[in-house]
């Protein structure tokens, strides 16, 4: 039973991670590419780490929950990383695809 | 305390470095100077005490952490290493004293860095562990990088960049060599390695050979052996002279390491690998001498000239190391001490002379007369005679000895011819330099500059170094006996192994 849960969590996690990476490659402009890794990968990681937590708690001698820490960390930092990256993309005036709306909302940062 | 004497030459400089960074002794320049000079004096005295102990009781083995060789790191104080430790600390004392006249204020952390440099050099001399040797190499290198930039100008920066980058590559090679040697021998203690090398079989022999030869590259780079010497002239001549004087010992670290590695690990007992580097060393040494001499003749200022003299001395020493006989090693030991002190003296002299000649500084061209011609002239005469290797000063003993020691080597004639021609060329170079600087004055002095005089601290330091030449002549009897003893010990494979691996018993 637990093995099943672990397996499913692992597969879900892996899939999300993969989706994030696919987004990274597939999307047409930087701003769109950012979405995959920021969200899907983070969630995928959380799922994987939960699987690991359950795995170690059940197979090892005792409860093992420190994987939560990594999830916590990723959840805290992923938005900030994304924010920094998109800031630098805006600073570099990277093109977004043509049909992007609201480009004039971007203020010149210099 | 007395059983920890072996450790003091490493402990004291480190302690000095720490104290000099901390209040209260490190906070004011006068306090720093006094602390630094006192500490270097104490370190020197401790080294001398160690030397006497080694003389009295034989080789001292100090197992750090109480882990005996080959598992732990041991310090090995034998006559050779202690002698060099004494030399280093003496030089350190002279240099801290000299710099206390004002050079130390031309940048931050001069005094702690000098002590750290001494720490590195002493550690490298004393350690019996080859990886620990690497660590101490790095200690002395990083300290030397910083000292090199002390009070530096733009020329200095380029030389420093070259020096640092080359040595970083050198360190990488060192690590690869250590990897190979550990991978074949499974041990790091030099004595243990020597033992294991003797037992190697099959292709392992060649792997060990690679390790040994790569070590040679490292030591050749540190010791400035051709073709890895190219960094030295610029580095030493652009460094502040007191720093260059201190650096005089650093090339000797490379030479010393060669002596250790190629007499102990790859020496007589190493089977197929014994004396594997001998031929390389011999011919490279000869080429080094030749190029060093060309540099001496080509030098346009006194510091560069001295830097090239350092190269010549390295070539000479390595040639002696290559002969790998007790006699040659003892000659090398004597010559090493002599050449270190004399070149250090020359660097300092170049500085003092340069300070009294205005814009011309130490260039070998006509310039304004120095303000203290008698003092500086006499000191230059002494140092010059010593470095040329003419009687009555220490150089001639070295010269006689090394010629005698190479008498029965292969290709003696090449060495003798080269060495004698080199001596002649050095004589011409040094004489020309001296006569131009002291005797050839500008017709009219257009430039007005402040006439500086030698500071008492500088004077004492200078006298310490310069007086070594006559003293080493007068006491050449006992010194030569000491050098011979050190050489015998160096070559005594079985005794070395037994004593080191049994923890000094």
């Amino acid at each position, binding site marked *: 039973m637990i093995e099943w849960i672990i397996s499913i969590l692992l597969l879900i996690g892996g899939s999300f991670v*993969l989706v994030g990476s696919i987004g990274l490659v597939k999307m047409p402009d930087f701003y769109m590419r950012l979405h995959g890794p920021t969200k899907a990968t983070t969630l*995928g990681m959380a799922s994987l780490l939960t699987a690991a937590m359950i795995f170690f708690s059940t197979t090892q001698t005792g409860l*093992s929950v420190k994987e939560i820490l990594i999830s916590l960390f*990723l959840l805290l930092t992923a938005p900030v990383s994304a924010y920094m*990256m998109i800031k*630098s993309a805006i600073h570099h005036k990277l093109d977004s695809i043509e049909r992007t709306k609201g480009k004039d909302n971007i203020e010149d940062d210099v | 305390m007395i059983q920890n004497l072996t450790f003091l030459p490493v402990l004291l400089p480190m302690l000095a470095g720490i104290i000099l960074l901390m209040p209260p002794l490190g906070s004011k320049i006068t306090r720093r100077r006094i602390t630094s000079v006192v500490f270097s004096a104490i370190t020197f005295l401790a080294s001398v005490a160690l030397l006497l102990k080694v003389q009295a009781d034989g080789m001292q083995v100090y197992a750090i952490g109480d882990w005996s060789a080959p598992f732990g790191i041991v310090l090995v104080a034998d006559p050779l290493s202690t002698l060099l430790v004494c030399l280093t600390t003496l030089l350190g004392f002279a240099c801290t004293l000299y710099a206390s006249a004002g050079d130390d204020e031309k940048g931050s952390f001069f005094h702690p860095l000098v002590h750290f440099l001494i720490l590195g050099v002493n550690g490298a001399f004393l350690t019996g562990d080859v990886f620990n040797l690497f660590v101490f190499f790095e200690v002395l290198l990083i300290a030397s990088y910083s000292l090199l930039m002390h009070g530096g100008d733009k020329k200095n920066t380029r030389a420093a960049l070259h020096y640092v980058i080359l040595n970083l590559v050198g360190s990488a090679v060192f690590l690869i060599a250590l990897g190979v040697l550990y991978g074949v021998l499974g041990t790091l203690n030099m004595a243990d390695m020597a033992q294991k090398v003797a037992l190697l079989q099959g292709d392992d022999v060649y792997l060990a050979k690679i390790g040994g030869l790569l070590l040679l590259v490292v030591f050749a780079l540190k010791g400035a052996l051709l073709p890895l010497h190219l960094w030295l002239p610029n580095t030493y001549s652009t460094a502040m002279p007191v720093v260059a004087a201190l650096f005089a010992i650093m090339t000797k670290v490379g030479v010393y390491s060669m002596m250790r590695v190629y007499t102990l690990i790859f020496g007589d007992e190493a089977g197929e690998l014994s004396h594997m580097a001998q031929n390389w060393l011999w011919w490279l040494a000869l080429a080094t001498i030749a190029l060093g001499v060309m540099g001496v003749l080509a030098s346009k200022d006194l510091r560069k000239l001295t830097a090239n003299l350092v190269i010549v001395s390295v070539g000479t020493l390595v040639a002696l190391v290559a002969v790998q006989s007790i006699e040659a090693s003892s000659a090398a030991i004597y010559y090493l001490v002599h050449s270190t002190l004399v070149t250090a003296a020359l660097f300092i002299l170049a500085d003092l002379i340069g300070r009294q000649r205005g814009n011309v500084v130490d260039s070998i061209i006509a310039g304004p007369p120095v303000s203290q011609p008698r003092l500086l002239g006499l000191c230059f005469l002494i140092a010059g005679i010593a470095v040329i290797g003419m009687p009555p000063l220490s150089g001639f003993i070295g010269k006689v000895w090394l010629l005698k020691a190479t008498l029965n080597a292969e290709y003696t004639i090449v060495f003798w011819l080269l060495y004698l021609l080199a001596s002649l060329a050095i004589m011409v170079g040094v004489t020309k330099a001296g006569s131009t600087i002291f005797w050839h004055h500008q017709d009219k002095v257009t430039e007005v500059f402040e006439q500086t005089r030698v500071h008492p601290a500088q004077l004492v330091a200078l006298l310490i170094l310069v007086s070594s030449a006559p003293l080493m002549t007068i006491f050449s009897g006992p010194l030569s006996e000491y050098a011979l003893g050190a050489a015998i010990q160096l070559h005594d494979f079985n005794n070395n192994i037994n004593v080191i691996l049994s923890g000094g018993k």
Partner: protein
Amino acid sequence: MLETVILIVFAIIGLSLLLNVWRLLIGPSVPDRILALDTMYINTIALIILYGMSLGTELYFEAALLIAMLGFVSTVAVCKYLLRGDIIE
């Protein structure tokens, strides 16, 4: 079964890593590459965690934790560099 699943997920993560490297190589812009590298860091965490699971040891947990922390710092540093040049101003 778990072993098989771990192997499969290994492969998935490996594939993701390859995709990341692809983006890293083709760019085209520096922020794109930073993004790719940042994603790589995170995928590496997954890799290490999976490795730990397949060996049944938690000895490598700290490595994963540190990648999480340090990957963030280095991404931030590079972005700051792009934005301001001087990262410690």
